């Protein structure tokens, strides 16, 4: 079953075409990766899917429903959660409060929301830091918090924007394990990543975006050999498969 | 609400343009500060008031011609602005914007009420005797002090424009306001840019105060009136936009003056506030967009 579908999505900012006639389909239960050079339009795509931007043209379907133009909170309520590339914690609130706010979207009662938040913090390894202020966390822990907040909304589909990038190898492995765990819970995952190890080990399928257009799609092995993909990455700093 | 006749309308238009030039000068200082530091300087009006009082006291104690006192008010306000930025504003450059606004609000409260304490709430006036006679052009009476203020305002604006375009410091200021990170990498001393820019902004509004003193009353609370008008002009012209501030000033000057012809008493201020809210809601980038010049 197709859980998320983008049809002909287009978005320009001033003279800059960020996303151009982009279409894709995401099947229930799979992990789909989106890769592409910096500035290719990946985060713009996420913003279009989650209601932060309105597409100039094209439509978004979630669980068969046309959700184009809905506000972000409405999309979250329907079961689509996201993380932000640059983490957006509630800085002056504690880690626990941060996640509890996510939990409130499904659980109106304060004590129950607290319980749920504590449970989720446990699954991402932040339980010990629950009373620390979010602003005091390291980058790695912030990424975990970002993930925890989104998970607290009990999504059916989660959009992860570069959650592995910027982590040290150990943290990165942990994060990959968390994401696998998410899929095991039955949550579909759409992820943007630069870290090839994560992409290769997690994704069932990969879509490659360049200058806002889809230039390739397929299973990881195919993509890594695709000449168009390699060409798109020529001149970029990072190396395919750098983390061994 | 009686409709004004043509002579009154023409008079309003002329007055509006003349006053608009002064508003432009006030606004240019404000927009420069915003463009460079992203700070909304609520204390701007109180600085103008200080410019007015500088001129007033020099006139009362030394008999100094108000226009000559520009030589004092400009550097004095420049230094004051520099000090305010260096010691107060600089502390909150990374704070949330509403906190920055609160700081400048606090500064304005302090300055205005300190002035009130020192100089009492009495309304004072000063008169430039050689400009007492108004010029008549057809049916329109042109107040000479207002005309002189307008001319000086334009001159100072042009001087500032040349400064920003031609001098190294000016270019550095423009660079810092357009691209802060880039300016840093080129080795521009951002700290110094900030207090110079603030100083210039203060100097502009101080000059505006000096120029206004001959035809407006002098009083510690006068800043409050001008500061909101300055905000409206800046928002209308586009925050950080130099040309916008001047054009916006003239538009607001006209709106206020022509509006006063249609609408009784205090309500002309009402029009200004109303325009302010409308622009904030529906066209916050202003008429000319938020660029800096």
């Amino acid at each position, binding site marked *: 079953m197709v859980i998320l579908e983008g049809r002909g999505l287009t978005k320009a900012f001033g003279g800059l075409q960020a996303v151009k006639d982009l279409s894709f389909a995401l099947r229930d239960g799979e992990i789909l990766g989106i890769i592409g050079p910096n500035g290719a339009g990946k985060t713009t795509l996420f913003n279009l899917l989650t209601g932060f931007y309105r597409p100039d043209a094209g439509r978004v379907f979630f669980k068969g429903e046309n959700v184009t133009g809905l506000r972000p909170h409405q999309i979250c309520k329907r079961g689509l959660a996201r993380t932000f590339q640059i983490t957006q914690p509630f800085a*002056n609130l504690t880690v626990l409060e941060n996640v509890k706010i996510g939990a409130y979207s499904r659980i*109106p009662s304060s004590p129950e929301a607290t319980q749920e938040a504590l449970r989720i913090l446990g699954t991402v390894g932040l339980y010990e830091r629950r009373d620390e202020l979010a602003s005091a966390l390291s980058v790695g822990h912030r990424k975990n918090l970002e993930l925890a907040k989104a998970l607290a909304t009990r999504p059916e589909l989660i959009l992860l924007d570069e959650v592995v990038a910027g982590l040290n190898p150990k943290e990165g492995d942990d994060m990959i394990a968390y994401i696998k765990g998410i899929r095991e819970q039955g949550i579909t995952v759409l992820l943007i990543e630069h870290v090839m190890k994560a992409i290769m080990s997690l994704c069932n399928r990969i879509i490659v975006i360049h200058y806002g257009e889809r230039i390739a799609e397929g299973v990881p092995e195919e993509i890594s050999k695709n000449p168009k993909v390699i060409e798109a990455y020529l001149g970029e700093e990072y190396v395919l498969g750098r983390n061994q | 609400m009686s409709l004004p006749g043509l002579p009154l309308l023409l008079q309003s238009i002329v007055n509006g343009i003349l006053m608009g030039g002064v508003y432009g000068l006030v606004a240019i200082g404000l927009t420069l500060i915003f463009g460079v530091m992203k700070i909304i300087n609520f204390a701007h009006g109180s600085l103008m008031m200080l410019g007015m009082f500088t001129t007033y006291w020099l006139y009362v104690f030394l008999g100094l011609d108000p226009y000559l006192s520009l030589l004092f008010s400009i550097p004095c306000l420049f230094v004051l602005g520099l000090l305010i930025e260096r010691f107060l504003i600089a502390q909150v450059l990374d704070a949330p*914007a*509403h906190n*920055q606004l609160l700081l400048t609000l606090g500064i304005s409260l302090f300055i205005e009420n300190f002035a*009130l*304490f020192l100089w009492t709430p009495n309304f004072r006036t000063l008169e430039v005797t050689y400009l007492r006679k108004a010029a008549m052009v057809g049916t329109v009476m042109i107040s000479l002090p207002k005309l002189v203020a307008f001319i000086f305002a334009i001159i100072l604006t042009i001087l500032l424009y040349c400064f920003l375009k031609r001098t190294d410091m000016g270019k550095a200021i423009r660079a810092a306001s357009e691209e802060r990170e880039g300016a840093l990498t080129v080795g521009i001393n951002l700290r110094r840019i900030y207090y110079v820019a603030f100083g210039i902004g203060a100097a502009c509004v101080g000059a505006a105060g000096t120029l206004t003193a001959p035809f407006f009353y002098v009083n510690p609370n006068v800043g409050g009136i001008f500061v909101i008008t300055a905000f409206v002009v800046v928002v209308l012209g586009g925050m950080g936009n130099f040309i916008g501030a001047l054009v916006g000033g003239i538009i607001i000057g006209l709106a206020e003056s022509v509006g006063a012809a249609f609408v009784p008493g205090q309500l002309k201020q009402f029009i200004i506030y*109303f325009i302010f809210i409308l622009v904030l809601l529906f066209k916050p980038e202003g008429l000319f967009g938020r660029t800096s010049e």
Partner: protein
Amino acid sequence: MNSTAGRTRNILVIIITGVILLILPFFMGGYYVHLVTMIFFFGYLGVAWNILGGYAGQFSFGHAAFFGVGAFTSTLLQVHLGVNPWIGLFLAGIAGLILGLCIGSLSFRYGLRGPYFALAMLALAEMFRLMAVEWMTVRYPLGITIPLKGDSLWYFQFRSKVPYYYIMLFMMAAALYLTHVIEGKKIGSYFKAIRENESAAEALGINAFKYKLLAMAMSSFLTAVGGTFYAQYYLHIDEESAFGVAISIEALLGPILGGAGTVLGPVLGAGIIEGLSETTRNLLGGYSGVHLMVYGTILIFVIIFLPGGILGGLQTAFRKLSRGG
């Protein structure tokens, strides 16, 4: 701090404080009753402002708009139509609420935030003040005076300050309780989320527009009711006392000083500010505006050195201590 021992201790403190406040008027002369009533009053105003400003993060520089609308509504209804001031108080709150919803829906719909929202609110308050000036110049050049009806709870007027003291104490306590309830529930957390990061809040299913409007509704209603109290306390209002910038500043100064986003911050701030105000008034006599100079100094000092206010600063220090050991 949520252990039963902690909670019992809190309740004990509240009860003891309550009792002290209740019997205080019997030990104080009229001047001090007035002073403490004013502390309660500005504390109340600050608590009302704090719901929108400190919790939801939308700083308004123009709360005088609601205050004045409240004061004028109840006063005019009373003077012209003989409406009982208690009913007038409720209607005043409604009037403030409606104004708040109007300006709120416009502002939040069009994304007015931070300093722009603050200034728009200031402009709004000034617009009301100017309208009042215009309207009153002819009809009420000396302001509106509420006719004396003697000592009467029914008419919300008393010869002694003491009944006002109790009324204001009750209002402040009610507002504090409301804030406390909000803080512990979903709505309070949602306010804070919007304050901290509105986009992130939206991504977690929070309808920011709706909650900001909710905060605005509570804040404007309470502030307007405060306006009625003020009118009944002084039995006189004019455009300056009702819509003046001073009220807007006093509404926000308590919370900023005491700690925006905390329950007791506004009251703590109000206490300090009123104390300082009175002291300067006594020391420096009738010089107008000296207390405003003090306000300015407080603002400068707090924003630079204690941006979280006193309670915020204490919280930070406490955190550092319990960690750094």
